[in-house]
Structure formats: structure tokens, C-alpha cells
């Protein structure tokens, strides 16, 4: 066994690889491709909404765009990006030679391109693609769905298998592959948050598989799960879906917490405030995520006791989340802060994610939610959580670790340009949605009343700025990889962790012999 051999040559390197760095890179590139595709779908939506009336696409196709935008962004962009980061970073952070089960790791990745080929191909099928929203509520997704829903179901099945295997790999790696001395409470928070995320994934992806299976049987085999005529209940769909769906939301944000907890101390030049409380807060959020699902369903007609229980349980989540925000702010307090690109994205993450969290608290109030439900206020809320939350943290991570991955520094001017374009673009896009939502504009419609016209026009302009800035991001990354300045091992002076002890770019195999911690 060669200890120091490099990568194989050609295409088969990527097809057959078992290397966590190769697989991490593939996940990240795949996720970026999906991010652009989902972004194009979003721009179709925003272009249609630029003015009231129907201009560009017919309403049926508009529905397919809202559906596919959500599915591609959630399952194709955000989740694979975090798995890519986990692949690249976890083995290096804990001093492991690779992921615990390297072949299964490759399989987890290679399922995804096929799953998304299947999913996106539905757009070209007879009757069009899925048009029932990314939450695919029955009976829209069963009784009234286009025939392509069958392929959508199977695509969800196999991407779920990919997620479960990826999560099993992460857990086995973290619990079994740590270098001697790397105790659990010494692990970087990114590793901790991923451990908890992986647990959530294994707990809820099978439930998603279960609910799409019920759909499949209702559609093709005559069962009555979501059909009241046979004694079933469409609301059952929503319960099972959101039992998956709410933890899913935290699957998309917990690793982001880990990233912010790595970057903020580096650029504040202070250790993270409250490490242990961060760990406990993350675990608390994960546990609470299982008992809040029906806050997505306040208006569907659940009993009063249910409304109250899910309202209070949801508000409880603000406590551990508040602990986290407090810790990040306190870490920065009286630090000698510098504002390199990763830090800018991280600070924006803390501020804008908090805005999304606060609008979430508003939505958690059941009686108030009767007004907000299914309006653009909800769209504003979850985009504030996901875009400056999940996606900004991914950008921050890429700017922070790209020198380690590629061996080249990022040009700060280019990085900061990307940051400011994105920051401005996203706020122009999503902030006005709060206003139109509170004023009553419903989500998922291709046309709207005239009084919403101005804010929608502003949103669309912002969306195109944001979309353009991501093409610019591609340029920045490619330019860095091709001709960035040669990076040192210690990329950032204040950074701590095992990944900074290896040279940049990180050798193909790291820690074949475990380091001492």
C-alpha cells in the first residue's frame, strides 16, 4: 500500500475515487451547479412577478418553477454543499485518514447526479413536472398530480438513500476515527454540529421515504392514506411530511452554526465564547425540532390543544438559538476584528439569520399566523433563514477554506465585491417580501393585485443582482484556483485546528498516521 501516492489521472479518478477530498470537491461542484439551476428557476419566477399580469410563462409552468426551485435548492444545493464541506473538513479536523466508509461515501455522491437527472427530466415529460410546491401536499401531489410525479417520488427515494448513507458515514467517522486525544468536547463545533445533523438526517429521511411511498400507493395501488372517502386524511400527509420537514430545516442550518463558530473566533482573534453551551444549544435545537412540526399547519384545523402545544414548543427554540447568537456576538465583543471576506459573510450571517429567526418567532404565534400563513411574509422568513443563513455560511466556508483546498489565496477585493453584491442583492430581493406578505399577498401565484406592484418590481431587481453575483462567485473561485497567490499552511493568522497544520493545498492523503492532540 503506497502511503503517499497521489490521485489517479483522468475521468476515472472522479468516478472511482474513495478519497474524501475528491468526493468533497465533487459534492461542492455539484451543489454549485444545482444552485445555479435552482437560481435560474427562481429568476423565471421573479421575471414573471416583475409586473402584475401574466407576461412570460403560463401559470402551470410557473407552478412547476416554484416547485422545482424549492426542491433543487433544498436537496440539490444546500444539503450537498454541507455534505461536501463535511467530507473535506471532518477528517482533517479530527485527524482521520479519510471518512470511515470510503466506498459508500463515493456511492452517496454518485447517486445524486442520477437522482437530479431524473427529477429535472420530469419538466420535459407529458403533463409537465411536479407543480404542487416543494412541500407536495396531497391531494395536489396525488389525485391531481401530473403523471411525472411517479418519477419525482423515485428521485426522492434515491436521494434519501444517498443522504442516509452520507449521514451514517459522518457519524461513523466522528465517533470512530478521531485522533488520540481528540475528545468529544475538544472537537471543532463544525464537527459537533455535523454529528447532530447526521443524527437528524438518519431520523427523518426515512420518514420522507415513508410519506412518498404512501403517495405512490395512493396514486398507483388504490390505497386511501390521503383520501377521506376511504377513511384517510389529506392532513395526515402534512403531519408526516412536516415530521420530516421541520428537522430538515435544522439539517440545513446546524452545519452553518458550526461554520460561523469556526470563522468568527479566527477574525475576532478570541476563542469562541461558550463552547460547551454551543454544543448543548445545538443538541437542544435538534431535540426540539422533533416536537414543533405542526407550526407549519396552524391554519389547517388542528385542535386548540395542538395549536397551543406547537406554538409554545416552537417559541422554546428561540432560547438555544438565542444562546448561540449571544455567544457569537460576545466572541466578537472587544476582539481585534478584521473584516476579510469569510468574516463579512459570517457577520452578515449572524445579523440576517437573526432577522429570519425573529420573523420565525412572529410566525410561531398561532393566532398571528392565521394572518401570515401562505403569504409572502413566510417566503421572506424562510429565505432570510436559508439565503443569508445556510448559503452565506457556505460562501463563508468556501472563502475560509478554499486556500487550504486549492493552495491559493482568494483575492480579497474580488471576494468582498461578491459579498457586497450578494448582501445588497438579497436584502433588496427579500426584505420587501415582508411588506407585501403582511399586506396579504399570497405565495405561489403568478399574478397579483396592483397594490403589490412596486415592491415586487424591487424584489425582482434584487433577485437579478443576487443571481448575477453568483456567476461572479464562480469567476472568483475559478480565478483563485487557476492563478491565486500561493497560500501558506496557516492561511489565517488566528485560525486554530488540525486542518491548518497540514500544508496548502492539503496533500491528497492527510493524517494516514494519526496526529497527537
Amino acid at each position: 500500500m503506497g502511503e503517499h501516492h497521489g490521485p489517479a489521472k483522468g475521468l476515472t479518478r472522479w468516478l472511482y475515487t474513495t478519497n474524501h477530498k475528491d468526493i468533497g470537491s465533487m459534492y461542492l461542484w455539484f451543489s454549485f451547479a444545482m444552485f445555479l439551476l435552482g437560481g435560474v428557476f427562481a429568476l423565471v419566477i421573479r421575471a414573471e412577478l416583475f409586473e402584475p399580469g401574466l407576461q412570460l410563462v403560463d401559470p402551470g409552468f410557473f407552478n412547476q418553477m416554484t416547485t422545482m426551485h424549492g426542491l433543487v435548492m433544498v436537496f440539490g444545493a444546500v444539503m450537498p454543499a454541507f455534505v461536501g464541506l463535511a467530507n473535506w473538513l471532518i477528517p482533517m479536523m479530527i485527524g482521520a485518514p479519510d471518512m470511515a466508509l470510503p466506498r459508500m461515501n463515493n456511492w452517496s455522491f454518485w447517486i445524486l447526479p442520477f437522482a437530479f437527472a431524473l427529477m429535472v427530466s420530469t419538466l420535459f415529460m407529458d403533463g409537465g413536472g411536479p407543480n404542487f410546491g416543494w412541500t407536495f401536499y396531497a391531494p395536489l401531489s396525488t389525485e391531481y398530480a401530473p403523471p411525472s410525479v411517479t418519477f419525482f417520488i423515485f428521485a426522492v427515494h434515491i436521494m434519501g438513500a444517498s443522504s442516509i448513507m452520507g449521514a451514517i458515514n459522518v457519524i461513523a467517522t466522528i465517533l470512530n476515527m478521531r485522533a488520540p486525544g481528540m475528545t468529544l468536547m475538544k472537537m471543532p463545533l463544525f464537527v459537533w454540529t455535523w454529528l447532530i445533523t447526521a443524527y437528524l438526517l438518519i431520523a427523518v429521511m426515512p420518514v420522507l421515504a415513508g410519506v412518498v411511498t404512501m403517495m405512490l400507493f395512493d396514486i398507483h395501488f388504490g390505497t386511501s392514506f390521503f383520501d377521506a372517502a376511504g377513511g384517510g386524511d389529506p392532513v395526515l400527509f402534512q403531519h408526516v411530511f412536516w415530521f420530516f420537514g421541520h428537522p430538515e430545516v435544522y439539517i440545513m442550518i446546524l452545519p452553518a452554526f458550526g461554520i460561523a463558530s469556526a470563522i468568527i473566533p479566527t477574525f475576532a482573534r478570541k476563542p469562541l465564547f461558550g463552547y460547551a453551551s454551543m454544543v448543548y444549544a445545538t443538541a437542544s435545537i435538534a431535540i426540539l425540532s422533533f416536537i414543533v412540526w405542526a407550526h407549519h399547519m396552524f391554519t389547517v384545523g388542528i385542535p386548540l390543544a395542538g395549536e397551543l402545544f406547537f406554538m409554545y414548543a416552537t417559541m422554546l427554540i428561540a432560547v438555544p438559538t438565542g444562546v448561540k447568537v449571544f455567544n457569537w456576538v460576545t466572541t466578537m465583543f472587544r476582539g481585534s476584528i478584521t473584516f476579510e471576506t469569510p468574516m463579512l459573510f459570517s457577520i452578515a450571517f449572524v445579523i440576517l439569520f437573526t432577522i429570519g429567526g425573529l420573523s420565525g418567532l412572529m410566525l410561531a404565534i398561532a393566532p398571528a399566523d392565521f394572518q401570515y400563513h401562505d403569504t409572502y411574509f413566510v417566503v421572506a422568513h424562510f429565505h432570510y433563514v436559508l439565503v443569508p443563513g445556510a448559503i452565506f455560511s457556505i460562501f463563508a466556508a468556501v472563502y475560509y477554506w478554499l486556500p487550504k483546498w486549492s493552495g491559493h489565496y482568494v483575492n480579497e477585493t474580488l471576494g468582498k465585491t461578491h459579498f457586497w453584491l450578494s448582501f445588497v442583492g438579497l436584502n433588496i430581493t427579500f426584505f420587501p417580501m415582508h411588506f407585501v406578505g403582511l399586506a396579504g399577498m399570497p405565495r405561489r401565484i403568478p399574478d397579483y393585485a396592483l397594490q403589490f406592484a412596486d415592491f415586487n418590481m424591487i424584489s425582482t431587481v434584487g433577485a437579478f443582482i443576487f443571481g448575477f453575483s453568483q456567476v461572479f462567485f464562480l469567476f472568483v473561485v475559478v480565478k483563485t484556483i487557476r492563478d491565486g497567490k500561493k497560500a501558506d499552511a496557516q492561511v489565517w493568522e488566528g485560525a486554530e485546528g488540525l486542518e491548518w497544520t497540514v500544508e496548502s493545498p492539503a496533500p491528497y492523503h492527510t493524517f494516514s498516521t494519526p496526529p497527537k492532540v
Partner: protein
Amino acid sequence: MSAESTYYVPEQSKLPIFASIALFTTVTGAGMWLNGSGYGPTVFWIGAFAFAAVLYTWFATAIRENMQGLNNAQLKRSYVWGMGWFIFSEVMFFAAFFGALFYVRMYAVPWLAGEGDKESTALLWEGFEATWPLMTTPDQAVNGAEATVKGPGGIFGPWGLPLLNTIILITSSITVHFAHVGIKKGNRKSFQWWLLATVILGATFMFFQAEEYYVAYTELGLTLESGIYGSTFFLLTGFHGAHVTLGTIMLLVQLLRSYKGHFKPDDHFGFEASSWYWHFVDVVWVGLFVFVYIL
């Protein structure tokens, strides 16, 4: 550095990409089949056989590596974690269907009859009464013989075949444990006989289950189309049956491996993992027996 202390990382592998292609072919074929395409069955079966072949090769590779001594103690622990969390994911899959059953029985059906908070729904399905097992669907209550979704003609009591099957599966959990004790003591004969007994019990369970389905369809009029009772009954017992089938195949493979001389008293994870899986399908059955058949 000796192989003992190094974590074995396989260099490259064609297995995952082939597994992905095969899986993609299988589900695409299944989708085409369900949507009425004539090519569907062909594509599905090509994919399914290819997938089975890849998995066979994959497991064979993993076994060969272990027998070559490439797997150190740490790597073996990775397999242990992997199997444990895989079983947890299976638990959650069944939890979705049990959850659906509980929700339907506790809330959906009573509400359809206008009980509790949902007085007004009784107006939609006049004359519908909430009972479990649900023999008369809301559709039938309103439309009588014209109804499109009709309840089952009859259902199974718990104390016939289901009780027998419960005894069979619980016994098989005990026999597989004895097999485990056998291999740990290095008593290969005892291991093989108890394992054989387990496989036979598993197959017997499946035979009775098939018998039950046959009776359900031909005599009772209990089918997938029999309203929510048929839906929950067949998906819960059906997925359980699929898992018993898989578990039996897994144990059979371990039995065949032991005839080839595989397994040592301190190195038999293939068998151990299969036995965990077997205990898991047993526990699921107990849940089924209580919540589907008895209560």
C-alpha cells in the same frame, strides 16, 4: 507500519458508480412500468439484476478484504456503527407507517364522523360512524353500493395465523441467539444448526404470511383498495414481510458462508449484523401484532 495498525482505505472502486447506474435504471424502470410504458418491466428488471450483481460483488469484496486481514479493529468498529445506524433509519421508516396508523385511528377516523373538535365534518359524510377496524368507509356511508372506495369484507383476528407467526418469529429470535452463542464458543456445528433453524423459521413465517394475503384477497375481500384499513394493514405487514424476506436472505447467506468455512469465534460481523437485523424485524412484528391485529 503493519496492516494491523493502519486504517484500510480502499484505493479506488468501480462498485459505487455501477451501483448508482443500476439503482437509477431500477427506479426509472419502475416509474415507466407504473406509468404504463411497455419498456418499463424490461428496464426495471435489467436494473434490479444489475443492482443485485453489484451488491453481491460489493459484499464479496468486503468479505475478501477482511479475510486478507486488511481490516483492523478500528475499521471493524466503523462497520458496527454503520449497521447500527442503518437499523435506526429502518426503525424511523416503520415509525412513519405506525404514526400514520395511530393518527388515523386516534384522530382522522373519529373526526370524519364529526367527533371532538370536528363536528362540521359529519355534514360531509352523513351517516358515517367511526369504528376500528373501519369496515364501512365514509364513501360507502354516503353512496352505499355506488361507492368507489369500499371497506374490507372481513379481517383477521389475532389468535389464528398471526399468533402462530408471532410464536414463530419470537422463537427464531431465540434460535439466532443460540447460533450466536455457538459461534462465540467456537462450536461451528451448533452455530450452523441453530442458524439453519432460524432460516427455516423465517421462511415458514413468510409462507404463512403469503397464505394470509391469499386468504385476504380471495376470501375476505381485504385488499389494498379496502379503504384506510387495507392501506395501513398491507403497507405495515407488507413492508415488514419484505424486511423478513431480506433478513432471511441475509441469514441464509451467512449460513452458506459458514459452510465455506467463514467466521471465527471473535470475527463474525457479517453474521452479527444479520442477527441484529433479524431481532429488529422481530420487534417490529411484535408492534404489528399488538397494534394491527390485537388492538
